[in-house]
């Protein structure tokens, strides 16, 4: 079964039981370069594999970009 999650404000359909780590792989994002907020709580990198997304979860995936002055 598929579930609906919101990633960076956009709605996405993913298979049930998807972990944060596999989600990053699906999106082609290097886990080493990002930080993740899962329903407003930060997920430690060590927990990426054990955190499984659920229906209507909200995820923020951030990285570093050019900026500062």
């Amino acid at each position: 079964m598929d579930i609906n999650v919101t990633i960076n404000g956009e709605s996405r359909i993913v298979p049930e039981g998807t972990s944060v780590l596999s989600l990053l792989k699906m999106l082609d994002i290097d886990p080493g370069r990002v930080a993740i907020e899962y329903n407003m709580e930060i997920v430690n990198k060590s927990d990426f594999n054990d955190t499984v997304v659920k229906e209507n979860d909200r995820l923020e995936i951030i990285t570093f970009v050019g900026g500062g002055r």
Partner: protein
Amino acid sequence: MNDILKVAGREIMSRLWVGTGKYKDFEETKRAIEASGAHVVTVAVRRVNVTDRSRENLLDYINPEKYIILPNTAGCYTAKDAVRTANLARAAGVSDMVKLEVIGDEKTLMPDNEALLEAAKILIKDGFIVLPYTNDDPVMAKKLQDAGCHAIMPLAAPIGSGLGIRNPYNIRIIMESVSVPVIVDAGVGTASDAAIVMELGCDAVLMNTAIACAKDPLRMAHAMRMAVEAGRLAYLAGRIPRKLYASASSPIEGIIE
């Protein structure tokens, strides 16, 4: 000579710190940083573009093993947003330092010092190394130091304005008011501005626009590097006092009569 800057006990190998915004591309960013000799490089925190993954990552060009990556909270207008951004930056795993910015006004990009102090207190309690961007206000600088901030980053002039150091006297008073490093952040336009900052005795200077938006960013990066070094050396050497009248440098004795 041993003249190494330390922030929160950490050795920083340059007194010129740079930002990473406004460059043409990552390659130019990388080359400008190299030309500047900067050891500390500030970066912003933003959402990953999940629909267009073709974009490269800045950190592929700026090696976190080589540089001290200093995440900033640019674009935050509340203490809550700044704290959230700082926490995300730390979770990304490159640094527990943060250049804390809480902007109070979109047009001037002046800091909201009340919110800044509130955010600083929360982050310090949570173990961050906090470097706050603030006004050139000695009272505020002292409050931020007393809250536990590890350096003070007063502006020389509004962000991106290139006006140079508008109130050198306030910057001097800030340096007398606090014992943590004072790092001028924002307002530098050209090399002489950076030299003046350093001649005043500031510990370091952070800039971005002055290099990135120069006609030739790589040349300007090199110029800034030399200006910061020259200014620092001049400060350490101790300038002569300003005098109204001339003072001959050749001996009076032995003048041909």
